[in-house]
């Protein structure tokens, strides 16, 4: 009888595990701007390397697809090669025995469709499309294209004010982004190849902690142009536009519906994540440029909008997405059922709710649901449950937000779909009835819930907060002729509203609910393009030099994460949850930066996305 062994059959399996982890980091950090066909080829070669060698289509077909794909990547292929690839891929897809084969073919077919423009360029122009080409990943990944290596270098050099100024060159909300940015800059950080992405947000937060934004002087405003620009909405998009437009010398009037500026940063994000005084630091700095007039309580209807078009040289519509979506279930209008945006909005205006002793149920799985539930805890709720119809890992909220909510004591009731709201005689909600779900087929990248054939559950509730998405109040603008698509404003990539010269739209109202940094990026684009529209080509002066780099330290080092106050303590108040980095931590974290602005592609022509 053969001896058994506890060792893996293939002795390198374990070692390979570590190697694959390393390899995965490389895949994860696939640089922006890489030709998608090259990535497709790599995936195909990986598949060819994974074939077990049993079946003909996979063992012989995929290597041949690799050869064909290589000629396409090399721009040596003609259309017949693509046809042959499609034909062979279909055969491999349909006749392979296992997923190594058919998934590879599926992936290739999907890639040929998804990257059809690139394919065509390789076939017709024998070159990649114009946009292909690598750039500094953090800078490119940031919608505002902030000079990330630059401000990290400044922090490393101890010049925190310089760092804040460096951020503000492209983004007038360094504090907001230090606290609540979803940091797309970190996604492709090259440091991932060695260990993990740099904690870019953390460094920015450190800089603004040390050098508050309103203590760092803004650049001087350019000579007054006399041009008048109306900005509708005082949120991140509107205020960014206002900031840059006024720096260019234009006169900006901001029309804000509420009593304070900040938009969702004030009326959507709770104070414990973004303390109001910190938001005010950014706003004070922006307004300190001068040339910005703010009209509070300004509700813009159809007539008002038409007036703005008449009275101003340009209009930027950035009204955000402030209406809560609702559910079509019984008694959704009952007392005690509150849209999440309404709750958070009221808090933004200073009305702190009292939920003492209440049982609160929050419906939804996004960041807003987390914000609501954690707010409810802080408002004294006896128990808070989040009801979500998918699994916890399917929630759209950042996983760190989910974990924080769980840590603070929010109960996650997953795979339960709201079915009806139970009310008492007075019409007040008493419970949420839910239908248990199972996870089902994946649609659009997420598993869809499927109702289980079992009885409903009843979750007692004194308050039900509905956080199932937000909408835009586009009606008045639509009536004035601004086109909408799925209730969002239509604008081109330059944010121009079609057939309305001088009217621009951007931010959540154009993209649907997204992130603060995307709105900031839109505001920046709007300001720049309005300047052009008005016939100017302003360049904004900036004179802070980026320190010279040290040679890269390649030693793998752990990433410094931002610590949070203990859950049992922080859940009792609305004070900020995060604890800033220490100087020591910031120093180590900054030292991990590989300075892609000078090493590698950053030193090449076209390797950076920077505006003067």
């Amino acid at each position, binding site marked *: 009888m053969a001896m058994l062994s506890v060792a893996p059959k293939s002795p390198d399996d374990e070692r390979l595990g570590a190697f694959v982890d390393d390899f995965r980091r490389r895949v994860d950090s696939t640089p922006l701007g890489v030709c998608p066909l090259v990535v497709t080829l790599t995936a195909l070669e990986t598949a060819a390397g994974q074939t077990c060698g049993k*079946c003909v289509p996979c063992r012989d077909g995929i290597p*041949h697809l690799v050869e064909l794909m290589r000629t396409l990547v090399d721009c040596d292929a003609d259309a017949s090669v693509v046809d042959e690839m499609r034909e062979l891929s279909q055969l491999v897809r*349909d006749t392979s*025995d296992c997923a190594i084969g058919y998934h590879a073919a599926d992936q290739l077919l999907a890639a040929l469709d998804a990257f059809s423009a690139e394919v065509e360029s390789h076939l017709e122009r024998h070159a990649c499309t114009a946009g292909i080409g690598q750039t500094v990943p953090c800078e490119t990944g940031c919608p505002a294209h902030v000079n990330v290596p630059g401000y990290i270098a400044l922090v490393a050099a101890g010049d925190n004010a310089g760092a804040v100024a460096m951020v503000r060159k492209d983004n007038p909300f360094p504090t907001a982004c230090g606290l609540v940015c979803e940091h797309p800059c970190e996604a492709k950080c090259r440091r991932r190849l060695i260990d993990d992405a740099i904690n870019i947000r953390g460094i920015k937060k450190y800089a603004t902690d040390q050098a508050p934004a309103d203590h760092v002087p803004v650049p001087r405003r350019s000579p007054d142009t006399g041009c008048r620009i109306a900005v509708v909405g005082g949120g991140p998009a509107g205020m960014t536009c206002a900031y840059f437009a006024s720096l260019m010398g234009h006169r900006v009037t901001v029309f804000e519906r509420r009593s304070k500026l900040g938009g969702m940063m004030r009326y959507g994000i709770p104070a414990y994540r973004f303390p109001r005084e910190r938001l005010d630091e950014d706003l004070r700095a922006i307004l300190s440029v001068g040339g910005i007039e703010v009209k509070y309580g300004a509700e813009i209807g159809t007539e008002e909008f038409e007036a703005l078009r008449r009275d101003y040289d340009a209009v930027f519509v950035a009204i955000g997405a402030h209406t809560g979506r609702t559910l079509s279930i019984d008694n959704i209008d009952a007392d005690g059922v509150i849209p999440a945006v309404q709750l958070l909005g009221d808090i933004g205006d200073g009305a702190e709710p009292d939920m003492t002793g209440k049982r609160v149920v929050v419906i939804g799985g996004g960041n807003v649901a987390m914000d609501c539930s954690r707010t409810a805890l802080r408002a004294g709720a006896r128990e808070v449950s989040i009801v979500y119809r998918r699994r916890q890992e399917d929630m759209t909220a950042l996983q760190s937000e989910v974990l924080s909510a769980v840590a603070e004591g929010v109960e996650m009731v997953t795979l339960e779909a709201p079915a009806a709201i139970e009310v008492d005689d007075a019409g007040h909600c008493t419970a949420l009835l839910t239908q248990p779900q199972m996870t089902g087929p994946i649609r659009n990248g997420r598993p869809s819930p499927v109702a289980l054939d079992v009885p409903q559950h009843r979750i007692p509730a004194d308050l039900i907060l509905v956080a199932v998405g937000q909408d835009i109040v586009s009606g008045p603008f639509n009536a004035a002729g601004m086109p909408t698509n799925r209730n969002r404003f239509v604008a081109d990539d330059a944010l121009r509203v079609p057939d309305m010269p001088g009217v621009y739209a951007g931010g959540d109202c154009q993209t649907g609910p997204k992130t603060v940094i995307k709105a900031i990026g839109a505001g920046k684009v709007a300001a720049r393009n309005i300047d052009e529209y008005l016939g100017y080509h302003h360049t904004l002066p900036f004179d802070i030099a980026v320190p010279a780099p040290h040679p890269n330290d390649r030693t793998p080092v752990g990433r410094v994460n931002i610590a949070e106050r203990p859950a049992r303590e922080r859940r009792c108040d609305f004070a900020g949850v995060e604890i800033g980095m220490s100087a020591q931590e910031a120093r180590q974290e900054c030292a991990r930066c590989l300075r892609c602005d000078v090493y590698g592609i950053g030193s090449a022509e076209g390797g950076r996305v920077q505006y003067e």
Partner: protein
Amino acid sequence: MSNSPKKKLVTLTIDGFQVTARPGMTVKAAAAKAGITIPTLCFLRGVSAIGSCRVCSVELEGHDGFITACNTPVADGMVIHTDTERVRTYRRNLLRIILADHGLDSTAYCFSCAKNGACQLQALCNAYGATEPAWRVEQERKPILESNPFLAYDPNLCIRCQRCVGACNTQARNHTLHTAKRGMRTTIEAPFGPDWKATTCESCGCCAAACPTGAIVEKRRRTYRSWETRRVRTTCPHCAVGCQYDLVVRNNRIVDVDAAPGQTNDRRLCVKGRSASFDFVDAPDRLRTPLVRNPTTHELEPASWDEALDAVAEGLGRVKREYGPDALAGFACSRSTNEDIYLFEKMVRCAFGTNNVDNCARI
């Protein structure tokens, strides 16, 4: 093996025909019941059903990909199409891919192959119009392994279907022949190279019999063409297992042996049965004429049958007359046929008149 007859039969539709089948039956077998032949290449009944060539892929309604008929069990309500345009195209293209792997451009063409005319790949390619490899093949020839006295492996002709591996594992149960260089470079590690004596290979040749192409062959396969031969089913003359096989005959000479199905050996053979059961029939030192001892020279000399038989009758008759029938005896070979032994024994008892007859069962 299922011996519960209560298991419900399943009904499926194949090319529009309703077919009833036992659970566990393959789609290929069920189709055969309806008179529909699904081509296979890597499949060898009872030996290998790993579904590596995919040539038997058929369409199953409601299923994303295709299924392989050779190893997919039937299920109630299946609706299967075995002859759609797509099936035929895939089948032809799979064969063309296999042809590319077969190295049609890097090896000599079919006519120089020992299996020409008996090659399953050749036959299928013919039937499905796969006339060209799917792509150009590099002109690279790998060395042929043929140090084993009986067996040879030409990697250039190997299509890596692994039927030989199945034969070594499930027929011979010797587990000597296996795959190596995994993944896209998967090859057959045939133990016929210069170090063949150091391997555990028993040269039974089950692998060569299983090979659908000319990759693994008994070397003697090169000396004849299938269409020149006829076959005679018979029983192996070696040990008492009594393996069934066909003698392959060309021009009154046995050129090869081919194992037969059936309960006795079910297409297995050993090295003796496959390679050493026919050369002796026409060996040069075969006795071809009677010999009678010359009384003067005391040498054995060729004689006519009449002379020889007369001498036998005379010699035995004299003993019988002089010493009585019990001074005679006969030994029959326990390797000859029942009929021979029956008549031999009858001869001893009736013509010699004694019970002194025995066979070599004892020795």
